[in-house]
């Protein structure tokens, strides 16, 4: 473990950014946002970013390839640019876990090489949470916000930033920063432990700390699919894509061709199961009503994904949907409503 004074963060960022692009949460008018670091940019004090960190591996739109047309000939042009090294600093435990959720989709055969390249070239410097929000419930899914995963795990106390490498990649980075950072002693270990304790204490006092996902999980489709509660839960849903677009684990996408007039650009873009044209095929849509689309989203997070991924939930409890849904419907309300009946 290495450490550096919080007052010298700027130097640390400069040193990291010297070797690769560095992204970190900064404050904007509309809340925190991951931005490329440049001299003078301050780390946000907000708990989390409005948009999740998934953008860095699975961006909202991605130019997969281009086609150029000359007369009646078509030429395919490689537009790939996902092989640049970068560091993501200040990723919270929930978002780090979301990468695992995405990995299981995109790195499974057939491997998505765009995603894979980005993952390989990205280094995660996670940050433990000391001020979890009232909307946080990562604990529900077994995530410890005091001890995130990641290549380098960071803990920030009032005056010191502790850097703990967890992977070879992380060690190599810390190695390169050794001139700037100091080695840690026993006192430091104690400080970090105290820091974690404070986190745990706060996490246990959160309003949603008691929320349990135990009733959900693999192979529970029949238990929930026809529950009448879906009707009341979904009746106010506007069918917008806010929840899916701020969600760190939503991974559905669409492929769109854009005719530029002199060629075609092929994009991959996020899709939302809340949209009325989601998975529309020539024969029509498989889910005709908003109820079915709404159900799909939550069943996927809580049942279908765990079924296919060894019980891993594809919700990480980041709470973004709780604060952003225009009609204040969210996974917590769904879990309480459905789970409540199941176990009363």
């Amino acid at each position: 473990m290495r450490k550096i004074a919080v007052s010298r963060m700027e130097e640390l960022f400069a040193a990291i950014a010297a070797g690769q692009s560095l992204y970190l949460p900064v404050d904007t008018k509309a809340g925190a946002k991951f931005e490329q670091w440049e001299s003078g940019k301050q780390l946000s004090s907000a708990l989390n970013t409005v948009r999740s960190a998934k953008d860095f591996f699975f961006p909202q739109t991605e130019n997969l390839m281009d086609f150029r047309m000359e007369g009646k000939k078509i030429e395919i042009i490689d537009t790939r640019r996902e092989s640049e090294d970068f560091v993501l600093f200040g990723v919270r435990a929930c978002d780090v876990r979301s990468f695992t959720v995405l990995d299981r989709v995109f790195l499974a055969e057939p491997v998505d090489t765009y995603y894979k390249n980005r993952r390989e070239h990205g280094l995660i410097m996670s940050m433990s949470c000391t001020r979890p929000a009232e909307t946080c419930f990562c604990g529900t899914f077994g995530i410890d916000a005091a001890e995130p995963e990641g290549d380098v795990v960071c803990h920030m106390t009032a005056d010191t930033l502790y850097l703990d490498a967890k992977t070879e990649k992380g060690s190599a980075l810390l190695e390169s920063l050794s001139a700037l950072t100091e080695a840690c002693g026993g006192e430091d270990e104690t400080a970090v432990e105290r820091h974690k304790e404070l986190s745990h204490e706060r996490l246990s006092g959160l309003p949603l700390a008691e929320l349990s996902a135990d009733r959900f999980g693999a192979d529970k489709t029949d238990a929930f699919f026809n529950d009448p509660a879906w009707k009341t839960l979904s009746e106010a849903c506007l069918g917008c894509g806010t929840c899916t677009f701020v969600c760190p684990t939503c991974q559905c996408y669409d492929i769109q061709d854009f005719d530029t007039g002199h060629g075609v650009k092929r994009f991959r873009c996020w899709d939302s199961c809340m949209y009325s044209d989601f998975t529309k095929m020539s024969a029509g849509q498989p889910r005709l009503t908003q109820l079915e689309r709404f159900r799909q989203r939550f069943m996927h997070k809580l049942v279908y994904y765990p079924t296919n991924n060894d019980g891993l939930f594809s919700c990480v409890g980041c709470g973004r949907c709780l604060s952003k849904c225009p009609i204040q419907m969210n996974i917590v309300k769904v879990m309480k409503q459905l789970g409540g009946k199941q176990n009363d």
Partner: protein
Amino acid sequence: MQRIGVFVCHCGTNIAGTVDVKAVAAALKNEPGVVFSTDYQYMCSQAGQDMIKEAIAEHHLGGIVICSCSPRMHEATFRKTAAAAGLNPYMVEIANIREQCSWVHKDMAVGTEKAIILGKAAVAKVNLNTPLTPGQSPVTKRALVIGGGIAGIQTALDIAEAGFPVDIVETKPTIGGKMAQLDKTFPTLDCAACILTPKMVDAGQHENIRIFSYSEVTAVKGFVGNFDVTIKRKARYVKEDVCTGCGLCTEKCPQKKVPNEFNLGMDNRRAIYIPFAQAVPKVATIDPDYCMMLKSGKCGVCSKVCTAGAIDYKAKDEYIEEKYGAIVVATGFNPISMEKFDEYAYSQSKDVITSLEFERLTNAAGPTQGKLLRPSDGEHPHTIVFVQCVGSRCEACSEKGKEYCSKICCMYTAKHAMLTRDKYPDTDVYVFYIDVRTPGKNFDEFYRRAVEEYGVHYIKGMVGKVSPEGKKLHVQASDLLAGKQLHIDADLVVLAAAIEPDRSARPLATMLTASMDTNDFFTEAHPKLRPVESPTAGVFLSGACQGPKDIPETVSQAGAAAAKVIGLLCKDHLTGNPCVAHADEMMCNGCSTCERVCPYGAITYVEKEFRMPDRTTKLRRVASVNEAVCQGCGACTVACMSGAMDLRGFMNRQIQAEVDAICK
């Protein structure tokens, strides 16, 4: 994607002079969908059209693009060509590479590049064209003629003779118009009344003609073949079907001081009157502005003397609604006001008169019983000065005069001068002219006779000033050929006033959605090839409402308009324009926004049951376009937020494809 053929026209050197037509044809060959591309000298020629037809058959073309002159010129031609080859005529698009390319650009490279882009846009559009079939609408077999002058009468008679019912709407109490006020007609000098009144009688008695005199058109709705017209029958306070036209009332009416408009105010009539002896319909009319009974309730003389009991002081304006298949505008002309020409002292002296007033002065039925007497003192004038082009060809003073030549003045002035010299050889007659324009059969001969046989003094030059001095009118004029300024003491000055369209024409044009030029003359659909049709389908033009005309010309146009109307009324159905709006009912919200912007009332809303995508059925309110009424402007397509409303032939996708092709 269609199989498209591209045909690039040279138009002789009109296009080929500035556009490399071979390069255009070669470039367009590579566009998506194009399977055939060629160029030719004159695409619109028989040989060119045959070539298109052969290519359609040989290459199984599903759409064709003609790079040629403006679609306003030959779109119809090429659509017919396509149809003859079995291709839907609406699978034809024109790239305008003449008017909008070769004629406005000088550089070959620039012109060629632009022509290729215009061609690409047309190809992009035709790729999205769909075959269109025009709808059909029935034809109401009745015509309306607005205006009962010689133009309207002749049109009505010709249509009626062909067996179709016709209604004439005339604002005055009688038909006859301006011609009824004339004395003799040039160049034959036959009496106007002698040739007009039999036609008036024919019109009045024809079984197929109804005359709505003292009436106005107040509203026109509908479209070709199906006009709904509202006609206001102004209250004439005399029952038209009861009045025998005996005229007793017009002799007994105590109100004698009403200016007689038929004689242009040069004498008086009564408050109840029949404009002239040969009026059709020959019924009396009460002038509500002067009738004591109507104004103050005291009098009632006419009612007492009328043995037929035709007087009805309680009459009200009536509105009748009638359906027509065709409308002929024959609203005619008026001389312009001379008030603003102070240099000619028209307002200062009674002895300065207009030519139309001169007609009345020489007319046997006029205020002087045909004797040429000065209006001021009733004496016989010995020196008469005619001034030509008063207010005509007047560019500088648009608020005073008209820029155009009024066309008829040269001839009627020659007639007036000649008749004066014939009847009163002791009179000196001067005609001041800028040019004497006599193109017409026997016209120049007529003018020469005035000079050579009747000794009329034709002087090249204009009158600068007329000043009343005692009983005389001092005329100061230039004689340009003699290089002199002339000073003539005249007894009478006659002004050849410019003519202008009747005031009623402008509001009528709005009702008919027919277009007008800046002078308020109705515009013809084509100045050479469609001179009696207005650009609005089903509306035809007859007489001076379209431009200054003499009687023979008016009568020929009247006949031509009638022929067009008959041609229309002979059809049982009309084929419409298929480029009309249509609503995608599944996308329509039923919000009524489109209904509000439609100028034709073509959109209505209907409740219909639909099978929804979620397999339920639902009663929905959706827009429905009457394709026969829709004219295809597209206002609704933009008003429609969801894009449910689209315009065939100019679909959103097609226009966007053109934009894309131009911008790429």
